[in-house]
């Protein structure tokens, strides 16, 4: 037993080091820092302030706004992304000519850099850009300076772009899930004369639940941390400030309040953890397979 212990420790050393120095220690460091008023401009004057950062944060209208925007982002993009991904997966599931091409094309945006996509869409959304032209053709009023320069449309434009980008990735996961459903189930339903939609709702969807849960959880964790798009496209202006951008602004620009920003980071952390747990339990109810 002892020999194995040293062996395991030896082999797992890279991970242990990474875990300790990149995750555990920084996590604790950030937690402690959240209870101080550490400011990079005055590193020697840092002192313990207990929960003051947290109470200030919850009274800070900018932070509350960031929370609101982040929730809008999450609650707006996740259902849309999941449903679109499912539809795409269903469409692409059966073999047909050119299926591989379609599948690849849908998937490609999701492995492209978010910075690149944000740059492209900054142009498409600008005043006189293609999307503005398309919108006015359909009759939607375009904000005067482009979609990103208006409180009402900026955040939603970024959300739409995010959905566009992510669907391909989740489509693949749904595809894998669809593949794992045994064909016999469908055959039995066929013979019993069950229609398409009935099959969809009684067989496919219930059996996709674990996959859907997986998608939900990772999409949630990722969406709550939305930052790159905001940074490249709007820098938090026009009501697009999200929580990670708030943390960035408070901790790395202008005021360099590392303590305050760390507390904000932990509030986000808790929110994400709570959401993940809730999702886990809600969708984990054990059901008989058929």
């Amino acid at each position, binding site marked *: 037993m002892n020999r194995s212990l040293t062996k395991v420790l030896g082999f797992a050393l*890279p*991970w242990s080091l990474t875990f300790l120095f*990149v995750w555990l220690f920084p996590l604790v460091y950030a937690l402690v820092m959240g209870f101080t008023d550490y400011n990079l401009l005055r590193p020697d004057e840092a002192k313990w302030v207990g929960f003051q950062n947290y109470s200030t944060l919850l009274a800070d209208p900018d932070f509350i706004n960031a929370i609101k925007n982040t929730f809008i982002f999450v609650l707006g993009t996740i259902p849309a992304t999941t449903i679109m991904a499912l539809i795409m997966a269903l469409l692409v599931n059966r073999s047909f000519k050119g299926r591989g091409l379609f599948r690849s094309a849908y998937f490609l945006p999701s492995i492209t850099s*978010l910075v690149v996509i944000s740059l492209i869409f900054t142009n498409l959304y600008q005043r006189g850009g293609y999307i503005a032209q398309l919108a006015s053709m359909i009759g939607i009023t375009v904000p005067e300076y482009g979609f990103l320069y208006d409180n009402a449309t900026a955040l939603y434009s970024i959300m739409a772009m995010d959905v566009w980008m992510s669907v391909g990735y989740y489509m693949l996961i749904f595809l894998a899930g669809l593949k794992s459903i045994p064909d016999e189930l469908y055959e039995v339903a066929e013979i019993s004369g069950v229609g398409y939609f009935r099959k969809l709702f009684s067989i496919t969807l219930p059996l996709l639940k674990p*996959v859907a849960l997986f998608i939900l959880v990772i999409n949630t964790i990722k969406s*709550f941390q939305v930052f790159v798009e905001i940074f490249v496209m709007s820098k938090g202006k026009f009501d697009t400030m999200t929580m990670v951008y708030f943390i960035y602004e408070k901790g790395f620009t202008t005021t360099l309040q590392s303590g305050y920003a760390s507390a904000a980071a932990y509030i986000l952390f808790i929110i994400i953890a709570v959401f993940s747990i809730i999702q886990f339990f809600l969708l984990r109810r054990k059901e008989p397979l058929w």
Partner: protein
Amino acid sequence: MVKSPIRAISKYFLLLAMLTVMVFPLAWMFRVALMPVGSSVSFDALFESALTLDAFRALFAGTNTLKYLFNSIVVGVVVVLGNILFCFMTAYGLARFKSIINKPLFISVIIVLMIPSHILIIPLYLLSFKVGIYDTIWALILPWLVNPIGIFLVKQYIENLPTSMEEAARIDGASEFRILFQIVMPLCKPALAVLAIQVFFTNWNSFLFPYILTSKDSLKTLPVGLAHLQGHQAIDWQQLMAGSSLAVLPVLILFVIMQRHIVSGITAGAIKQ
């Protein structure tokens, strides 16, 4: 099942519509990258403009983009190789040897997989000063050398491998080192390929941490450099898209070559849940 032609047509229509929407922005990017510098990007210009590599030339001459590309490549390769080595080692240790520390170690891997990484931006930033790696290439490499996804993937794979070959080698008196690298590693190639691709994509496109942990221009990676170029007064869309194409091309090429591995890597995690 006999599908009515209407069904087939409407399905194809839908597929094509989605294809256009999904492909257009990226196709636009490539088209603009090949336009003469400074020309308008109106819809007509897409078709009427000449095809030229001018934007790339201007971009390379006027900015550090080639250095950014170089940095991304170097960091990408080092991180991928590091991950292959270290994740493999760790996964092997956890899969093949049982001890009391296995469960806690594995749980630590799972925990880290669930932790949102934003929580690290401030501590890693501050700690990078103390350790002296701020604004050096090490900040882009060291924290990312052992990715928990990699450990997870490879461990699953190794657990499904028969131990016969290793045991035979051990009886023959081969050292652990030899067993590890000459016997098990070659067997793990598929999993390691998936790992390499996952890690490469994550790393190639990553923005937040490279941005925060570096500041000098010569150290920027491509995404960070592109984001800064956007703020440049003298950069026009053609050059910006040229730079963006550089960020997308490797991904595109890799995707075409390694499609199967990419797909299996993404789906493996999902299904095994």
